């Protein structure tokens, strides 16, 4: 009988975390930031059809970085979670906090139990009736759940991005200003110019009707930058 090699748990977790971090670092970052009317989500995405930003429920949006198939599974599961909950109880009972917790639990379990951890990071944004009620949650590959205040970033360059954003961010700024800030921050961190057509952006606008998620078209993104 052969004995399996003993691997200390510290080593096991470290290896898994390193593996996941490497995968995520290859992906492009996404910035989420509050503006006067709600929340902006923006990132580089040359693919026009494979989205990284998505609507989950009335006031809740999703952003994912890393392996597409993995965060796509999380996105679909999030929509199912939200629609099931809203149908079973009521629309106001679907909250960003509940969804972020569900993601956190699931990703934590996958990190320790599955053969391979997910190489993804996700962001859950929920726009409130006023800025005080707006909530931003960031969930990491191991299920670590954090709330972010006013702005946040996910992806390989998240720390550098957050620093850049902190320098230029002004609470209550107009959408144009926040698009410009995020655009400049991402370009500065990536150290290259990103063509106008390669951006994906969406907003949660608290002044829209029941469904507050809206994608920004290429023209709109470029106009905001001008």
């Amino acid at each position, binding site marked *: 009988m052969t004995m399996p090699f003993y691997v200390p748990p510290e080593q096991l977790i470290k290896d898994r975390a390193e593996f996941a971090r490497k995968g995520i670092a290859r992906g492009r970052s996404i910035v989420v930031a509050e503006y006067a009317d709600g929340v902006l989500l923006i990132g580089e995405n040359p693919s026009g059809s494979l989205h990284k930003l998505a609507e989950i429920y009335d006031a809740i949006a999703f952003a994912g970085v890393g392996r597409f198939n993995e965060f796509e599974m999380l996105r679909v*599961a999030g*929509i*199912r979670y939200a629609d*099931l909950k809203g*149908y*079973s*109880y009521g629309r106001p009972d679907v909250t960003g906090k509940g969804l972020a917790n569900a993601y956190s639990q*699931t990703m934590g379990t996958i990190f320790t139990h599955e053969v391979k951890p997910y190489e993804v990071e996700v962001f859950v944004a929920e726009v409130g009736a006023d800025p005080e009620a707006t909530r931003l949650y960031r969930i990491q590959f191991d299920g670590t759940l954090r709330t972010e205040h006013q702005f946040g970033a996910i992806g390989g360059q998240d720390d550098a991005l957050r620093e850049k954003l902190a320098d230029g961010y002004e609470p209550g700024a107009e959408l144009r200003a926040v698009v410009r800030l995020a655009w400049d921050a991402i370009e500065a961190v990536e150290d290259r110019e990103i063509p106008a057509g390669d951006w994906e952006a969406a907003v949660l606008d608290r002044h829209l009707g029941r469904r507050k998620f809206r994608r920004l078209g290429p023209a709109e993104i470029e106009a905001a930058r001008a």
Partner: protein
Amino acid sequence: MSGQSDGFTGSLPLDAPTIGSSFSALLEERSLHPTWTTDDQLGDLEIPEATTVLALRYADGVVMAGDRRATAGNVIAHKRVQKVFPADEYSAVAISGTAGMALELIKLFQTELEHYEKIEGTRLSLEGKANYLARMVRGNLALAFQGLVVVPLFCGFDESTQEGSLYTFDVVGGRYEEQEYATTGSGGAEAKAFLKSAFRPDLDEAGALALAVEALVAAAEEDAATGGPDLKRGIYPNVVSVTSAGYREVGDDDIAATAARVMETRP
């Protein structure tokens, strides 16, 4: 309603074996799908029924309207029932028949359309929506034989052809596209008779709105189960329009003014 054994569990449905974008399939898999089962005839059990709804095409799209009354036998069960609903941004659905079942059917239909749109990133075609609704009606066939009938009316603005379309259904799930107008419910025949004499294909929005309200007034005059506009209590029909600009509810003030004018000029 039975079959609510496990309820909403709160965990993320990541491993749901259903692949695809159907919300109903997800509900069924979790035994959450609303079902009404009974082996007995209803006998003299009186269940609230929603009555007259109608829809008509006009130059910019479709107008849909419904009265506000629900009856249980010869009793007026509810005076302010809503029977016309948005199905999604570019379509509307109205109901007649057993009110409780019909309202649940609409909630499920609305959720299904939004669920599909979010997962697929694109809306179902108007025909796709109508076909799906037909399937939902067909699912209630066994109950229809026991007297629990639900018959919807569906209309919308077709984003591909840029035209308003409207569909009627029968209890076996038959789906029929109508060219001019359609009615259903207990006062439907009266409303239809009125529309037949007054309908013109070149109506503008104000004209279509006035026609819809007058058809409901005509139905209420002949059918006891249909409620006419109640100017004293401020109960007015629900009227909505669906055009290239999407679904819009006509405000109570507009309907009140139209209703007052219609009542004035009725022979």
